[in-house]
């Protein structure tokens, strides 16, 4: 009975309610969906407008797979490396019995470092580990160790990875600290009462519970590095053929001589990013079962 009375005045109100979100959706359509959709659609077009899979097939022709592969390797390397360093540092700060005052200082540092990327970050590493960088020179003059002679090169895969790590592991640290603190004290006490050693507790209880969160955050780091352009460009001047660098070159001067192949490269990037983020949110949901 009540519903029949309430229904008529509700209708206009519903439309008003929707109107409140119109500016936001309009903005999203104009500046997010339209631009990406136009890239995606033209990925499936020939130069004269017909439908084709040739551009997608073109993604598997050299040098494009090499670029994707290099980007994937750098991202995976820094996600795992930065992830482990960040995790162990978070462990040290939470359950490692370090002096208390270290914590706020380190967290602020991590907040800054995780946002310190792009051109200035590249400069910092050139000044530190470049051919005449601070650390390079100290190692050479004081310790007689020429790292460039030993195969290190800042402007290469390994150098880029070391640089990316600077913003990767602080991000891991910031996310893992609340996760580790979410481990309930009861679990540890229960394990100890049953006679478990510290190692056994971590190996059989702590780590398994943290694992989804650990892997999920590593996926986040992977995406973080995979989409990066500025740091790599400023560091290597575009000589290291990451997929982002390749897309940049294509935008500057159609180096592939086929604009639609360029759009397909962008589409490929978005697909990889989307899979990464989906994996992240799936793992996030699993970890929320245990850690609130």
């Amino acid at each position, binding site marked *: 009975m009540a519903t029949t009375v309430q229904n008529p005045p509700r209708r206009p109100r519903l439309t008003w*309610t929707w109107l409140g*979100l119109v500016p936001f959706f309009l903005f999203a359509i104009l500046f997010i969906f339209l631009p990406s959709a136009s890239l995606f659609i033209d990925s499936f077009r020939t130069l004269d407008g017909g439908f084709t899979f040739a551009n997608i097939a073109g993604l598997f022709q050299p040098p494009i797979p090499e670029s994707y592969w290099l980007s994937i390797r750098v991202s995976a390397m820094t996600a795992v490396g930065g992830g482990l360093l960040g995790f162990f540092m978070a462990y040290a700060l939470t359950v490692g019995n370090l002096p208390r005052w270290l914590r706020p200082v380190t967290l602020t540092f991590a*907040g800054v470092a995780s946002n310190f990327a792009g*051109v200035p970050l590249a400069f910092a590493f050139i*000044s530190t580990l470049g051919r005449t960088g601070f650390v390079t020179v100290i190692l050479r003059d004081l310790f007689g160790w020429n790292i460039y002679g030993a195969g290190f090169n800042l402007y290469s895969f390994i150098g880029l990875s070391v640089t990316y790590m600077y913003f990767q592991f602080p991000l891991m640290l910031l996310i893992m600290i609340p996760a580790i603190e979410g481990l309930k004290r009861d679990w540890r006490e229960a394990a100890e009462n049953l006679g478990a050693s510290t190692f056994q507790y971590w190996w059989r209880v702590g780590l398994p519970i943290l694992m989804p969160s650990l892997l999920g955050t590593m996926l986040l780091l992977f995406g973080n590095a995979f989409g990066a352009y500025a740091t790599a460009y400023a560091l290597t001047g575009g000589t290291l053929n990451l997929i982002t660098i390749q897309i940049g070159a294509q*935008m500057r001067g159609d180096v592939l001589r086929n604009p639609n192949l360029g759009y397909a490269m962008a589409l490929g990037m978005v697909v990889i990013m989307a899979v990464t983020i989906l994996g992240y949110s799936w793992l996030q949901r699993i970890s929320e079962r245990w850690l609130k």
Partner: protein
Amino acid sequence: MARRVSWFAWFWYVLGALYFIIPLWGTFVFSLQKERGTFSLAAYQSAFADPKFAETFLYSNVMAVLTIIFSLLLVVPTAYWVHLRVPRMRPVVEFITLMPFVIPAIVLVFGLIKTFSRPLTILGVTVLPPLTNSSLSTDFLLVAGYVVLSLPYMYRAVDNGLRAMDVGTLTEAAQSLGAGWGTILWRIILPNLRSALLSGALLTFAIVVGELTIATFLGRPAFGPYLALIGNHKVYEPAALAIVSFGLTWLAMGIIDRVTRGQGGTTTGAH
């Protein structure tokens, strides 16, 4: 028992701390060595003396302020409305704000250039002229791109802020006293969101001021492209500018830290 594993904790902590500090220390010392055989601030003087430095830095600051204003205008009413009236739409709105994590800046600018370098037509009707033809309209496109990049941080900051207050009760109280929507947003919601807005704004500022990718490909005279150019031509000035830029990031994060203490603020950006 915890004391026994302490060396393990110290090992990882020191390793991480060295990773934090060595590049900063190295860059700082390097930046002081412009004059041979002595430490001096010559690199800083030379970097600041370049008129292009002030020009591009000012330009990027203006763009950052515009980005923050547009982003707030877009995000605050939307997040408020979602909280108050259309909580069903929350997943959709959240999903949209997270798009920059799926569409990296380089792909975003690729799409923006492709879409807006020709007249925008819907069903054969021209809605917008090409935006990349004049510097003013390109600036608009730049700000739009930056607003997209700022969405995840801005929305999360505002959303956290709204969660911390009772939006429904505050709104009803204001309405019962005769306030309109404008008054409610401006005099009730905004003041309660102060720390959330400030942290969102500062994070946006930190992302936008040195941004390279979008500014470069739109061909705008911003600070990021200027920095990249300096990096190609100078040796010690880039180090000086890296230190300055780290100081600015530190300042922004320090303020965020202070205003959001104990609120679990979000201080992480994407690259």
